[in-house]
């Protein structure tokens, strides 16, 4: 059986100050993804290697990693695409590392919370009155932004987030836009208070890598640029037509 080498980032905070790389030889099955190889390492070679994973079908968002420098879902990256190796596997960039391939994501979770990712309404419609109507076209206005699986590859790919950690970041802004563009939602003004600040859309310099690495084609870069236009229009409107609000 042909083999391929994985150079895996190791960091054991109870034993060492700085990370090291450890090399493992794994069988190169043609239908194995990086995650299969890591599970092989954990089961057969080294029980101490730590990483997050669950669904292995690209939808739970747990297993994002840097593979040869690119942010990918390790359940969707095939070993054969990295022939002949070695394959360098590291934790997601721009996040503090807890251990091995496990990053700390409290910051991301807090940011998700800040953009109010829920339907904001002045008056809730009683359940007895049935559903809100929403045409397929209205659905498509926001649906692409609703596809985000919170895998954080976009944060790992975003140099702005790396340099300015207070930046709310691609996924959270895309999620805010998901609700802003939903015809059932009335939270646009409330979200603007967060998105239009220095930590919001104006931090973005449009590197565009967030959209490139997104495994679900969410296009957060597009969401942010659209929001910049919307936010600017709203500002001019408030200055030129102060009575319109």
């Amino acid at each position, binding site marked *: 059986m042909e083999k391929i080498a994985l150079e895996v980032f190791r960091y054991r905070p109870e034993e060492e100050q700085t990370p090291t790389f450890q090399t493992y030889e794994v069988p190169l099955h043609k239908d194995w993804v990086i995650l299969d190889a890591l599970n092989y390492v954990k089961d057969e070679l080294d029980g101490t290697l*730590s990483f997050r994973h669950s669904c*292995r*079908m690209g939808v739970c968002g747990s297993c994002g990693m840097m593979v040869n420098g690119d942010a990918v879902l390790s359940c969707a990256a095939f070993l054969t695409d990295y022939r002949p190796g070695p394959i360098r596997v590291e934790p997601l960039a721009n996040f503090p590392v807890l251990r091995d391939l496990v990053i700390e994501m409290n910051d991301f979770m807090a940011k998700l919370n800040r953009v109010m990712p829920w339907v904001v309404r002045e008056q809730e419609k009683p359940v007895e009155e049935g559903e809100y109507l929403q*045409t397929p076209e209205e659905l498509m206005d926001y649906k692409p932004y*609703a596809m985000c699986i919170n895998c954080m590859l976009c944060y790992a790919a975003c140099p702005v987030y790396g340099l300015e950690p207070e930046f709310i970041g691609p996924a959270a802004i895309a999620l805010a836009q998901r609700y802003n563009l939903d015809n059932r939602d009335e939270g646009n003004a409330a979200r603007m208070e967060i998105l239009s600040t220095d930590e919001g859309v104006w931090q973005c310099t449009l590197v565009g890598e967030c959209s490139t690495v997104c495994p679900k084609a969410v296009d957060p870069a597009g969401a942010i640029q659209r929001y910049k236009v919307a936010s600017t229009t709203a500002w001019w409107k408030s200055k030129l037509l102060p009575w319109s609000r």
Partner: protein
Amino acid sequence: MPAHDIVIVGGGGAGLRAAIAIAEAAPSLDVALVSKVYPMRSHTVAAEGGAAAVIRDNDSLDHHAVDTISGGDWLADQAAVEVFVQEAPAEMIRLEHWGCPWSREPDGRVAVRPFGGMKLERTWFAADKTGFHLLHTLFQTSLKYGNITPYDESFVTRLLVADGRCQGVATIELQTGHVDVIAGRAVILCTGGAGRVFPFTTNGAIKTGDGMAMAYRVGVPLKDMEFVQYHPTGLPGTGILITEASRGEGGILVNRDGYRYLQDYDLGTPLDVSDERHPVKKSMELGPRDRLSQAFVKEQQKGRTIPGPYGDVVHLDIRHLGQARIDKKLPFVRELATKYVNIDPVYEPIPVRPVLHYFMGGIDTDVEGATVLPGLYAAGECACVNINGANRLGSNSLTELLVFGARAGKAAAAFAREHPPPDLAQLDKQGVEEQHRLARRFIQKTGGHERIAGLRQEMRDAMESGAGIYRTEAGLQAACDALAALRERFADLQLDDRSLTFNTELTAALELDFMLDVAEAIAHSALARRESRGSHQREDHPERDDDAYLKHTLAFCNGAMPRIDYQEVSITRWPPAERVYGR
């Protein structure tokens, strides 16, 4: 030690729905939402096809109930099913109000699609990522309530019982390894199924039956555990699910000769795919999952399946739907097939085989989600109300976790209001004991010869060969014996990782410990049921036997092997009859 009013274990669909129900019904109560992952990683995320609820004028609650009861081979509790179908529509509308991106009709109303075993179109869907959207909608909505405190990546190891009621849980905070107690006046388990006790499953790595095993260990019986569902269409190798919606939209199953073999197994006569009446509801490809998976095995025995590198397959053909419809209604199916088996279903049929998917059985609860242990509730796949009987219909499980998640939340809130705060002194003592147990048995354990992965694989192989789609007395007995031996060998585990920070070897060991309990409950329950019903097919007892077995199995934790007992099935308006599909 943090203390709350209610502790919810599990942050998937049921757990989040329960949390929101409490937050809305009782804003003064304070909820802890404990998850071994982050809530949006929970396996609800992987559900694809949809969620059933009566919404159209041509449908009725009775139709939904009858489909569910006959689909479950009359083992469902009919009183519970009536509650379920009645509350389902409001739950779905509530989810719509919270922002779920349901697929729509051109006029803006919610769209519904046909599903296996359902007489009419009543399955609400969000393309073919319904579970994903449902979970994220619930998670994001839960963020707006200030009285829900998240305990993410906290692994619950044990339920704490004091003064005869459940008063909290012991947890390992994974990021630090710190063992703590989270106390509450009531505890709700929403920990999902245990698909990982089998080798070939659609279930994610986290589905290891933790909650089932923990309830079992404190004396709560596991109900109807012998009923495990094989989904007829999983991708070979990985076991990734190809949704039943692909057949609901008109996909067909064919054998090596291109023949729609289901017609040979009393599932109806096929209509041509160009016939506008195709797909016929409750017929052929839209038969129930148990019957379709069983037909695959029979077809395999006749040598008419297609050999492949990961075992035999049949073909799921959706090419006739055309690219536009596939991209609109089944984009995820196309993505998964293209990525994982390198087949574009627009041009080629998808190889599929039956794959373990769902547990009808689980922690014994009533319609309020209450268990026999005061203060302990359960909902979702980990619980067994039972509305699914001996076989669950596709798209009933997402609805179930909403209806019974909400009910369990409200019932636990009522219980919490009527009971005093937890006895912190007693709990603290138990927490310290648990910490010592974990240290002694795992973290500080030296020596040992058995690897986790080895034992786990042997357990899975034993389950597949003994407790798979078709079962026999001898096979089940062999599985029971193998599991007993594995239980002994588990004590001789060899562990490499002594650290406290994110020790995933420790959690893998604890999960294996849980899975062994669940596996034993399944095998022994199946051994004791000497009849064939729904998903439980005994080659040595091929007929359904209502006289002896129209009752629920209860497995009690009892030392070396479970004690099996039985409970009456509630029959209200639909006396047991023959299950008829395609006739």
